[in-house]
């Protein structure tokens, strides 16, 4: 029996099935607790996209994108208003993870590293204009912002300084999250993977 050739034809096929409908809120919840855990341990990363990664890996890019979008909207309307606009970034992350996973770029530890870098680039490219519009280019993380300040002081263009600021933070975060997701996904029971993949 062939096992790992699933998504190839149906990656973009999306139906809001009962399985996906309960997976998405769970993914948003996982994002929230992972972020809370990282903050509690004072880790230099956010981890707040772990659930989005897992949703994309389990149910495809569209489910991941919806998880990411809802994550930021709910977070924005209950805790931190500005995070709503970064919903666009989360959508990008969800889509990128979904495509990379479907194309087999989450199949080995080496490949995961490449995926993490691609996802970090996607995230930083989308976030940079938002950072410039809302925060003059800053990210709000002290050491990233110090880098930003040094670059602006040396007359680097704001776009470049802001992208660098965001990218160094993103690369660290996305590498951590990608490996966490890779590791956790491998521990999931087959019946669960099959259930959310929804191939009846």
């Amino acid at each position, binding site marked *: 029996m062939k096992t790992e050739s699933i998504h190839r034809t149906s990656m973009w096929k999306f139906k809001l099935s009962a399985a996906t409908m309960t997976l998405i809120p769970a993914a948003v919840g996982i994002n929230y607790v992972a972020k809370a855990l990282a903050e509690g341990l004072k880790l230099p990363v956010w981890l707040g996209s772990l659930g989005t990664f897992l949703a994309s890996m389990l149910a495809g890019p569209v489910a991941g994108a919806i998880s990411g979008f809802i994550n930021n909207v709910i977070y924005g309307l209950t805790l931190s208003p500005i995070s709503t606009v970064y919903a666009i970034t989360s959508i990008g992350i969800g889509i990128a993870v979904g495509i990379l996973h479907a194309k087999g770029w989450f199949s080995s530890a080496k490949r995961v590293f490449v995926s993490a870098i691609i996802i970090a680039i996607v995230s930083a490219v989308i976030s940079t204009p938002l950072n410039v519009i809302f925060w003059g280019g800053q990210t709000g993380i002290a050491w990233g912002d110090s880098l930003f300040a040094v670059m602006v002081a040396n007359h680097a263009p704001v776009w470049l300084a802001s992208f660098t600021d965001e990218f160094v933070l993103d690369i660290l975060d996305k590498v951590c999250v990608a490996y966490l997701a890779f590791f956790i996904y491998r521990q999931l029971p*087959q*019946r669960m993977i099959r259930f959310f993949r929804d191939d009846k």
Partner: protein
Amino acid sequence: MDEDKRITLDNLSVRYRGAEDAQLKNVSATASIGQIVGIIGNSHTGKSTLCRVLAGVIPNIISAEITGSCEVLGHSPVHEWPNFNSLTGVVLQNPAGQLSGLADTVADEMAFDLINQGISEDVINKRVANVAAQMGLTDQLVQTPESLSGGQMQRLAIATAIVTQPTILIMDDPTSEMDPLGRQQFFHWLANVQSTTVFIVSSEIDDLSEIADRIWVMDDGQLVEQGTPQAVFNYLDADRQIPKPTAYQLAAGMNWHLSNGALPVTPSELKEAYDGKN
């Protein structure tokens, strides 16, 4: 007996997709309308899988290879879902997972199935109050579901299953998190349930012996014994390692037999055997 008054499993086998072994192997069993069927056996012997087939979850929600047939009161849970689903109330193993995940209060949670059916608000309120009283949750109606204890959560899960007044009730270990008093109340309630066919997985052998009309014994995916509690426990192979009812153990030790020669399995039978002896 008519087809629509019988439960017939005929050579039923189930294997989950991707699994090596079958979870159910050639299960054949019968029961009839209005009976309480107690399903017993050690863990991982196929009890939950059997419940899932009876409820139509397999193969309609969880995919699996299924052979043989399963007919419940003239309906096939395999082929007539979701029509069959409207006749059943189901309590799954994990009580917290059964809550809708979008209800503010215990009352809203109980009303969910009725709102789905488009029933009018007056009727909903009456039925919710009635079911809450039956399950001893009247004081908790305005609380949030997640504030409930494990046992209360299970009673809420049962309430959501019976609020639609199902003709078939399927419960997978519904008392696992209840305290002894709650469990006693539950079995007392179950004994008085009218005009409902009940399938219940439980390890409460004493309670099942008292209330069940039939006992099905599962072992390694096979149905190895079926009959009245008295018949099943008197003829059950000791190798099965399934505990016997307290009354049976006591009577076996004292050598108190019923007039038909069997050992008693309930307290009242025990008394009968004792009285017969003296």
